[in-house]
């Protein structure tokens, strides 16, 4: 069942532990009803509040009474900060297009398009087996909304339409690609453009000589967006373990020191003997 998280106001005691836990800042204590409340427009259905918080099953009436007394006495209780004392977070049913929020926000939900958990593909992590990015090519992972800012698909489309005219190839199995209605223009499905997600990753590849042009376009468009864009560039190394991308990035003036190194220990299974 696809579910959304709601806060049961019969159980919530307004302890506010869930308020800072929400990565999008979408939970607040409503002063009118004195209960935790979710701003559903900002909520990305990541389930961090429901899954990440530990749960007690205390009686809400008892907890509220104790809290009232402590508040009147100006006592400061110092509870565990990641606990919902009354198990007030409750899954509810989720429907399209809201389901897309969870698919791009909860890492424990596998994408229908990729069959794997997470927001992208295996990209360079299994390149030793898949040979997805070949020598002479560069793979890009352009992630929107990370870290902890979130993104609406309208901003993602601004980037996809800006990159589509360049000599790039969008990754077939990528979840963002699966939402494109036209790969030539980079247009996404219109009914999801206002949906907000934790992050979305656009994957593409190009020839090494086009890396500067792609980077220039990504940087320029990123300045127009109401979010953060994280860029990753990958390539296949040569027989000595050296790579061409580092030289290009140095020439373009990028500072880079962190990376993901595929050791080349993976292999395809031997074909079965006939």
């Amino acid at each position: 069942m696809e579910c959304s998280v709601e806060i049961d106001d019969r159980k919530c005691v307004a302890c506010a532990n869930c308020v800072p836990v929400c990565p999008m800042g979408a939970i607040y204590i409503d002063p009118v009803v004195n209960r935790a409340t979710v701003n559903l427009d900002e909520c990305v259905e990541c389930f961090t509040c429901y899954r990440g918080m530990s749960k007690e099953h205390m009686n809400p009436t008892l907890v509220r009474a104790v809290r009232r007394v402590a508040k009147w006495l100006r006592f400061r209780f110092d509870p565990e900060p990641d606990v919902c004392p009354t198990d007030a977070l409750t899954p509810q049913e989720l429907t399209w297009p809201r389901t897309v929020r969870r698919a791009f926000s909860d890492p424990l939900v596998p994408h229908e398009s990729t069959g794997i958990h997470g927001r992208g593909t295996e990209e360079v992590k299994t390149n030793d087996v898949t040979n997805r990015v070949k020598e002479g090519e560069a793979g890009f992972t352009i992630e929107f909304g990370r870290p902890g800012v979130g993104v609406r698909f309208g901003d993602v489309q601004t980037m996809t339409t800006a990159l589509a005219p360049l000599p790039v190839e969008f990754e077939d199995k990528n979840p963002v690609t699966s939402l494109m209605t036209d790969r030539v223009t980079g247009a996404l499905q219109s009914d999801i453009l206002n949906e907000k997600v934790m992050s979305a990753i656009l994957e593409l590849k190009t020839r090494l000589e086009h890396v500067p042009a792609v980077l220039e376009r990504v940087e320029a468009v990123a300045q127009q967006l109401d979010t953060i864009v994280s860029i990753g560039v990958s390539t296949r190394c040569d027989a000595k373990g050296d790579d061409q991308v580092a030289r290009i990035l140095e020439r373009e003036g990028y500072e880079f020191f962190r990376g993901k190194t595929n050791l080349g220990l993976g292999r395809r299974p031997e074909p079965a003997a006939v």
Partner: protein
Amino acid sequence: MTNTLHRFGAPETQRDDYIIFAMPAKGINEAGAIGKLQTFLRLALKHGPVNVGQGSRGGMYRPSSNLTPLAHWSRPEGADAETVLKAMDEPSVVAAVFDDVAKVEALLKDVKEADLGLSVNISGLADEANACCKRAGITRHSIEYSLGFHGDLNQLPDRHVLELSTMCGHGMLSHNFARKMIDMVRENRRTPQQAAATMARFCTCGIFNLARAIRVLEQARKGE
């Protein structure tokens, strides 16, 4: 996805932060992969990782669905690698986090010797990782570089918060909660160890580096 790639911090703040992970390629070499992933994890555990986990099944530090009120006075940290091993029932990414590059090198030698046929990656300082591979007799196959964050950087919090929150690349550890943990440490309401364990419970892949988090929390406490 790229959940280990974009950790925030200058190079000198990342010298105690390496994630080694193994995985099969979907639809290609998944057959028999669960046993190989368990072998990889057992090899990693020999070298004292600070955290381990499987992407779809959780890490050493997990939330509890049945705490009692006594937890507010005495709560076990919950580090349990055996739980990760036992829960492994599908062939997805398995990761181990290390705070010492010498341990990484020792693990690489073991993994090469075991010849599991799975894809193995190191996420961390690229030059250090490459040097480590060479010392272990491995020539790297592919590399992905992080070019960091671009766009509206005004939306980002301060460096201590970012160093903590970006250790969960899926964004499950919120900036606000990382800030709260820093405040609790600065006010001496939690030790750095307790605060790090609390944050680690939100990382569903087990890639949160507790050793680095404790160091960052100590620095934040002193305003360094």
